[in-house]
Structure formats: structure tokens, C-alpha cells
């Protein structure tokens, strides 16, 4: 029973902003070590739900438990240092060099990361140690997001939250970084929750996919089950897009082969 105790538990979480209900009553638990993708169209409430975990958003009603503790009762600064967070906009501090950006979480906790640890973190995301002294505006988009991931991992978090982490990247960088994150997830024994609007990415990376629509979870399936047609209409609508693309590509390939 203890092994199965959820690291994260959403208990009837509701988030309202004025008249708009972004999250309309979500109950769900996440087991340690899982890689969960939170998929949905824009405005489905997936980012808002993610931000209730590190209290960037406070729920209007309901509770979020992290390791069994209500996050609203924890010191927000201390909680956020235990939870790695990767942003869509990367959010590197433009006035700090790469090394200081990576070391910011431990620095806030009063701890100085030695250069060797910075180099180790850079190596984890496949960046040269020489990058440490660069300023963020000297890096490419992909390099910046790699630094963003290194920063999220610097404090040795138990939980990694990613909010559309690869949204602004080109497809090649995106695929490479996605695979890298999946690899780190396994190697570091993390629990990962990733918000994305790209069902293909979710199916390829996650071992559990939560589909959100109108502020509610409408499907909670494994990638295999979703591909087998489970999860209902909204989920299948999202799965249909990459499937159709894959089928058309395969058909094109078949056509090309028959020509030769």
C-alpha cells in the first residue's frame, strides 16, 4: 500500500477567475515514478491545474496534496524549491549567466553549487561546460530550454512539472529534447507531469495520458489504450490528428515504393 501511495493528489480542485471556470472539479492521483501527460486544447484548464501544484495558482475550492501534505499549508518558496518547473517561455533570467541561472534554486536555499555540479547538470542536458559563462541572449532557443531543464533539475527535485516545455522549439530540437527528458526521468527516478497540446508528443513520451476538456478530465488512459480507441470522443478527436498524419505519411511512402 505504501509503495502505491500517490506523490500527488488532486481532490475536487476548482479554479475560477471571475466568471470563468478554468478547472471545474478535478480529482485524480499520480503515482511516484510515473510520467503523466496532461493534454487538451487551449483553454482546457491544463496549465492552470499544473500551477496549483506549486501554488502559482491557488484553487478556489478543493485541495492538492504533495507527498500527503496540503500544498496550501506549505511555505510556497520552500515548496517550489522541491518541485522542478520548466516553463513554456523558458523564463531564464536575462541578467544572469547560464551557471547562475542553473544554480538559482540552491542559491535561494543558501547553498552554492560547485562548478563541477554545474558542469554535470550541463552534461545531463547535453551542453558544453563552456556554456556556463554565456548570457541567455547568446544561446539558441533549444539551448535555452536545455538550460531551463538543467535549472529545474539543479535542486534534486522529487517532482518535475513541465508547462508546454517544447512549444516554441523547431521539430528536430523538440524531438531530441523530448527524448532527453524521458531519459532523465528514468535515470533520476523522477515523477514528471507534462502539459502539452500535442497528442503525438504525449503518446510518445508519457506512460499515462490525462485528457482535459472544459476544465475536466475526460479521459485517463495509457497511450496504448488511447491508440486502441479508448477514452471517449474528445480524446479520440485529439488522437485522430497524429494518426491521420502518420497514415498519410505511410501511404505516401508506400506510393513512393510502388513507383520505384
Amino acid at each position, binding site marked *: 500500500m505504501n509503495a502505491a501511495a500517490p506523490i500527488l493528489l488532486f481532490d475536487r480542485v476548482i479554479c475560477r477567475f471571475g466568471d470563468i471556470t478554468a478547472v471545474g472539479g478535478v480529482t485524480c492521483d499520480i503515482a511516484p515514478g510515473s510520467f503523466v501527460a496532461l493534454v487538451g486544447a487551449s483553454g482546457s484548464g491544463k496549465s492552470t491545474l499544473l500551477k496549483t501544484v*506549486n501554488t*502559482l495558482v491557488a484553487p478556489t475550492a478543493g485541495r492538492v496534496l504533495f507527498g500527503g501534505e496540503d500544498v496550501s499549508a506549505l511555505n*510556497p*518558496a*520552500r*515548496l*517550489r*524549491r522541491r518541485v522542478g*518547473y520548466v*516553463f*513554456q*517561455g*523558458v*523564463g*531564464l*533570467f*536575462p*541578467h544572469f549567466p547560464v551557471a547562475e541561472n542553473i544554480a*538559482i*534554486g540552491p542559491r*535561494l*536555499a543558501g547553498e552554492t553549487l560547485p562548478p563541477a555540479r554545474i558542469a554535470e547538470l550541463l552534461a545531463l542536458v547535453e551542453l558544453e561546460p563552456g556554456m556556463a559563462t554565456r548570457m541567455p541572449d547568446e544561446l539558441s532557443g533549444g539551448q535555452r530550454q536545455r538550460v531551463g531543464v538543467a*535549472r529545474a533539475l539543479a535542486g534534486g527535485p522529487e517532482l518535475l512539472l513541465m508547462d508546454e516545455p517544447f512549444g516554441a522549439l523547431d521539430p528536430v530540437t523538440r524531438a531530441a529534447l523530448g527524448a532527453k527528458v524521458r531519459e532523465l526521468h528514468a535515470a533520476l527516478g523522477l515523477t514528471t507531469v507534462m502539459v502539452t497540446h500535442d497528442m503525438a508528443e504525449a503518446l510518445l513520451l508519457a506512460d499515462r495520458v490525462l485528457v482535459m476538456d472544459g476544465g475536466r478530465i475526460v479521459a485517463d488512459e495509457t497511450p496504448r489504450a488511447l491508440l486502441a480507441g479508448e477514452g471517449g470522443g474528445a480524446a479520440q478527436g485529439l488522437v485522430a490528428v497524429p494518426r491521420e498524419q502518420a497514415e498519410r505519411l505511410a501511404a505516401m511512402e508506400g506510393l513512393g515504393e510502388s513507383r520505384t
Partner: protein
Amino acid sequence: MGDIWDILPGLGDKLAAHVVLSASAIGLAMLIALPMAVWASRSPVVARIALGLASLVQTIPALALLALFFPLLLSLRAVFGEGLPTLGFLPALMALTLYALLPILRNAVTAQANLDPGVLEAADGVGMTRWQKLTLVEAPLSAPFIMAGIRTASVWTIGAATLATTIGQPSLGDPIFAGLQTQNWALVLAGCLASAGLALAADNLLWVIEVGLAKRSRTQTFGGMAVVMLGILAALWAQNAGSDERRIVIASKQFSEQYILAQLIGARLEAAGYAVEYRDGLGSAVVHSAVASSAIDISVDYTGTVWTNYLKRADNPGREVMYETIREWEWRSNGVKVLGRLGFENAYAFAMRADRAAEVGVTSLTDLVAVAPRLTVGGDPEFFERPEWIAVRDAYGLRFAGSRNFAPTFMYNALQSGEADVISAYTSDGRIAADRLVVLADPKGALPSYDAMLMLSPRIAQDQGVIAALTPLIGAISVEAMREANLAVDREDAAKMTPKAAAAQLAVKAGL
């Protein structure tokens, strides 16, 4: 204009005072505006109120804002005691600080509002506390924009600080005001040049710091700051080196006669071994209270002025009774010693150009009544508020087509150019004779007398050395001698004199 280059090197102490005043005002404004901006960035209501108030202050003319602090501080003495200065550095600092708030506050608030929201979310996301977010992220990223606001504030403040002269704070405004009153344009230009040069220098230095902050170059940022600090320290040092002992402070109001008499008094005291200091170009209302509070030690005031403004009397009991009443009242109520009368009057009188007076057939105020509805009357800025004007107007039933205000020096030009037909002239003014003006008779005796009196502050009222040095002035200056000295300063031809030279000549004329 070659004399500008002779005047500029002598402005060192004014420059030092100007730098210290401006730097203090900007420093204080930063201490107020920056925390306020942080608060405003957390609350839109605070932002609206703070920016609204700062903008409101900007709509008050700087000159009025400076003057308003005098009565304010005077009333605050009830709380803080008699030691609270009402003139000079303190009110100038307060007014200029209020003036400097807006650009600093506005830029700081705008900078915060324009910070990348992604970076701010990241600051929260990595677990920064509010204070860490402010010091590690918001402040460094806003710094170049805040610096731009400080630059604007500095240029404004250095310009506005020239007006501090009017409330008795030495600044680069001293030569400007003295030059304007005595029509010494080289002096005006020298003052303007010095303050403009200072403003440009400050602007450029702060720009270097601003660029240093934007480029995140520590060398440039701290280098620029070091130069600024050195400049301020040098000014402070220069100022303190000059004021080792308390000097005798002599006031003058904003017209030539006052500058000349201040120099005459100063020269006699210096000859008697006293160190003196001049506070030139003070507002008339400020001088009387300044002497009573010993912020200033010596002034020349006029019986009619004190009678109406401070005794609040509207009657006219005659010249001698008026003087004795004032002398007794000053001593009893204020501890101010009226040493005596200098011997001449500088009364209000109505004057016209001789040809214009002949044309409309006017020789007295009684004659004026019939033609007044076709004429424009000109007066100094306070004249139409004064009881003398009201007394004359009501005694004769005067009704003019219009009235206009002029600075005393320009009133006579207005008469010559026809912008005014009648002006409120002063009887000791040299230009009455020089311009061949007709002074209208006052058969009803509605205008009170204006004997010039030498006033000593409570601090020096018993100083026998001062009294001995100044007593020979009593009764020594005839109205003709005073007119001649005034004309020598006011004229614009080659015979123009500085107030100091005119004072020396007046001393000879008076047999001193």
C-alpha cells in the same frame, strides 16, 4: 559680453550650494519614490494615487511651490519648536524633492509594469520570496529605466533649484535674480550658463551609469557612480570650508534699492571687522518673518509695508505716530530692533509719462478719476492685493479700464511703450527723474508713508559693535541720493554700475 568670463569663476560657492541642494533633493526623492514604486507595482490603487499626486505637484509653478513651504514650516514650528528653519535649505529641499518625485516614480512604475511576465513567473517558480524576487530580478532588470527617470529628475531639479534664491537658499539663481533686478545681463547669462552646464554634466554622467546598467557593465556603472559621488563630496567640502563661523546675514528684496542698501550695510560691517553674507532677491513676505526668526540678521523694511502687512492696520495716523508704533511693536512682539530711519521714503505713488498726463489733463489723483475708465494701470505683482491700492481706489473712487502686473524693473518700460498709462511707482526710484515722469498728487492723503527702517534680528539686537557700525546710516540718506544710486544701477547705458559700486558712491554722498 566678455565680462561673463570674469563672473563665472566667482560663482564657485553658488555652484557648490547648487550641487549640494540638487543632489540632496534627488537623493531624498529616490528614497521616497523607489519604495513607493515597489508598493505601486503591487497595488494599482496605490499606483494611481501616487502618480496622481506627483503629477498634481508638477502643475504647481516651481516658484509658488518653493514659497508655499515658508508658511507651512512656520506653522509647523508649533509642533517642532522655534528651531525649525523656515527659510533656506530646508524648504528648498522639500519643494525640489516633491518636484523630482514624478519622473522617478513614473519611470520606476513603468519599468516594473513592462518586465517580461515569463521572467517574473520563473522567479516565483524557482521559489523566490517576494524580497528575493525584488532584489534579484525586478530591481536589476528595471534599473536602466529607473536611471533614465533619475536623469530627467536631475535636469529638472538643477533648473528649478535656481528659484531657491527667492527663499533665501544660495544657488546659481543668485546671479540670475540679481542680474534681472539690476538689468545686468552678463550676470544673468553667467548664472544661466553655469546652471545649464551643471545640468548637462549631470545628464551625461547619469547617462553613462544608465548605459552601464543596461550593458551590465560593472566597471562603467560603478565608475560613473564614483564620479557623481566625488562631485557631490567636492561640493560639500567646498561649502563647509567656507562656513566656519556664523556670519551676519543681510537680506535684500527683489529691487535695486535693496541690493544697494544691503551692500552699503555689508561694507560698513566688514570695515568694522564682521564677516557678512548676503541673501539677495528674497520675496518681500519672507524677509520680515526671517528677521524675526533670526534666519536673517539685517534688513531694510518700510513703515507702510510693516503697518499694513504685519500690524494689519488700514488707518493713517501720520508719519511719526506710525513709525513710533511700529518701533514699539517690533520690539515687544518680535524682539526685532528698529535701529532707526535711513532718512528717505520709498512710498507708493502714481506716476504717468509727462506727455500723456498733459494730454489727458491730469496732475493729481482727483483729476485721474474722470479719465481712469479709459486708462490701464500697471503695478508690481503684489500691488493690486495691497491695502494701499484698495485705500486709494476707495478714497477717490478710481475705476480703470484694466490693470496689469509687471516686475518692478519692467513697469517703467511698460509706461514708455504705452502698455500702461499709469503705474504704481516708488518715490525713491531714479527713473522718475530720468524718464521725466509726473508723480500725481495725493490731496486726500490716502497713501501711507514708507520710511526706510534698518531692522536688526533678535540675535544681534544687543550687539554693540553692529549698532555702532550702523548708527551713522540713520538719517544720512536723502531721497535724492537714493534716487541717484538707484538710477545708476537701473540705467542701461555706459554709466551703469553694480549695486556694490553704487553703494560705495552713495556712502560718499551721504558723508560716511
